[in-house]
């Protein structure tokens, strides 16, 4: 075995360039498998992190409004008058809180795009009104200071929590706790700073999750009564706005967290019924279950990953066939060598082993190069395409095994052919 390994190794070294060319198929095959699996794992990892962010057992009722005026075709039967709906309001919130079973926490939410101003700095931000349970629902941790409580909310206290990014923008050098910021014509005292959170993507925001880092959190009652309440139309409201109309609903969302016993799907159905009745059948709301959506997305992703992996594996098979092809040609080319080795005493098994080992070394070498390529590709994807990747040891181990097996399997036929050569004819072969 050892001597045949030596022979095989020497004959690869004797044809370095050809060995490298032969190995390319395996290099790309293994590289593709590793990077595909890394991308797949990365996506999965991201979803798992997002699952943490969206929290467990959450159901979100979101207000829906037409972004542009004009008739949409989905509006119903032509000629049928549109029924009136007050939109998503605090009354919905109170009602949902009353009728829904197994609620752990519930919070209304409304946000306005605005500017936040510290003593010297003015930054674009979003001010968001929530109740104190909001922070429990999303497991929001503080970097500094304190949360606000229901007492703050009921008393319409002028306090706020800052997201970590806006906090740094507004107070680049000093500690923001106790300082005052201005939002519109409202002065707010900063009582806490939210810990930096990463992984909130556009995808999550569609599902009703906020990008906490750039936002200012205020007790919702403070916000509605002191800043702006879309539920109360004012004469001063601008009706000539030609751009995207503002969300006319009083609330953006109602976020509900169920207890462990609560069932998200049946709660969703219940909420649908409640809301349908309250809104006279007008579909100006949507009910989201982020956990559910993410899990479905994960399943689709899993399937997609397997598909990618399978496609990448095909290139491994092609690589294997490439090795077989070259090995067959090499057997033909070295027929005289085989004859001579047989004449000086090599057994059939020696010849067979020599060629199988040769194929295995080539594909093993390809496998190692492929692993390096795969890892580099994964990093490149992460850096240049900004997609999360995660290289698993398992995929490296698997590629290693597969590349050796490829060599053995696709080397077998040529090796057999070499071993079965008639020595007399081989020696005469020109």
């Amino acid at each position: 075995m050892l001597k045949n390994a030596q022979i095989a190794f020497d004959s690869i070294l004797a044809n370095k360039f050809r060995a490298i060319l032969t190995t390319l198929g395996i290099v790309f095959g293994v590289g593709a498998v590793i990077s595909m699996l890394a991308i797949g794992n990365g996506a999965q990892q991201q979803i798992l992190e997002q699952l943490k962010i969206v929290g467990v057992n959450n159901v979100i009722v979101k207000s829906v409004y037409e972004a542009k005026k004009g008739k949409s075709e989905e509006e119903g039967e032509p000629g049928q008058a549109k029924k009136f709906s007050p939109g998503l309001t605090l009354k919905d919130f109170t009602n949902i809180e009353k009728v829904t079973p197994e609620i752990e926490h519930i919070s209304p939410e409304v946000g306005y795009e605005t500017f936040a101003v510290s003593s010297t700095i003015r930054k674009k931000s979003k001010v968001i009104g929530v109740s104190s349970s909001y922070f429990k629902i999303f497991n929001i941790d503080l970097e500094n200071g304190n949360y606000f409580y229901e007492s703050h909310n009921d008393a319409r206290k002028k306090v706020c929590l800052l997201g970590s990014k806006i906090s740094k923008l507004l107070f680049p050098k000093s500690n923001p706790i106790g300082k005052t910021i201005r939002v519109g014509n409202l002065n707010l005292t900063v009582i806490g700073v939210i810990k930096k959170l990463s992984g909130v993507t556009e995808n999550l925001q569609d599902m009703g999750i906020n990008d906490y880092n750039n936002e200012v959190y205020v007790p919702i009652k403070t916000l509605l009564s002191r800043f702006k309440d879309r539920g109360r139309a004012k004469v001063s409201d601008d009706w000539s706005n030609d751009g995207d109309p503002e969300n006319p609903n009083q609330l953006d969302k109602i976020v509900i967290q169920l207890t462990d016993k609560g069932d998200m799907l049946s709660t969703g159905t219940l909420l649908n019924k409640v809301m349908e009745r309250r809104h006279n059948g007008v579909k100006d709301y949507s009910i989201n279950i982020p956990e559910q959506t993410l899990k479905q997305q994960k399943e689709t992703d899993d399937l997609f990953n397997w598909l990618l992996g399978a496609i990448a594996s095909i290139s491994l098979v092609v690589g294997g066939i490439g090795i077989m092809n070259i090995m067959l040609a090499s057997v033909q080319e070295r027929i005289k060598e085989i004859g001579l080795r047989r004449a000086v005493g090599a057994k059939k098994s020696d010849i067979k082993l020599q060629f199988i080992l040769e194929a295995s070394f080539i594909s093993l070498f390809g496998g190692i190069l492929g692993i390096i390529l795969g890892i580099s590709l994964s990093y490149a994807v992460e850096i240049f395409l900004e997609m999360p990747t995660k290289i698993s040891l398992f995929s490296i181990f698997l590629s290693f095994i597969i590349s050796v097996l490829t060599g053995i399997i696709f080397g077998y036929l040529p090796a057999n052919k070499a071993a079965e050569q008639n020595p007399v004819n081989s020696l005469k072969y020109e």
Partner: protein
Amino acid sequence: MIELRDIKKTYITGEFEFQALNGINLSIKPNDYIALMGSSGSGKSTLMNIIGALDVPTSGEYLLRSKPIHELDDNQISEFRNEEIGFVFQTFNLLPKLSALDNVALPLLYANNIEKEQRTKQAKEMMELVGLGDKLTNKPNELSGGQRQRVAIARALVNKPSLILADEPTGNLDSKTSASIMELFANLHNNGQTIILVTHEKEISEYAKKTIVLKDGIIIE
């Protein structure tokens, strides 16, 4: 030492049968130096292949020291070739990518349990014996025809075989080089080596002590 009894070899190609050997009886004693002659198609190559155990007879017996070689399986035959036979070919058949020394050591690689140092040592001795002690690391293409054949002879000798089978060893060499190669064989014979020389050249066959002439698959003299 070697006994061939009624060796026949028939080749079948399609519908045609060709009787290459038609009942060969031959006895080779230790330290024999036999020239095997005959024109092309006389069966001398077939006979040499059978003696060298590269080919098997269709019928007949092949005994080496009373051991029936024709009954061995492929692995045993490989061992037999490795231990008992040293081949020298017309076209040298050196492996171009190996150094002269490694070419000589090749049979030892397939022998059982010989350490690398031992292999190198034995191969070196043989290279010195054929007068190429200073060409150990040269590749075959860096050697002249005569030197290549000497390397091939060293390779044939390295396993201390019972029998050297030389198939037209001077066929690719000029007459001066041929003479020096034949001198080398003569020396080996003088040191007790058994040699069978296959040739169609009368003057080369004269180096041997005994000549056997084949025609149409039988020994005619």
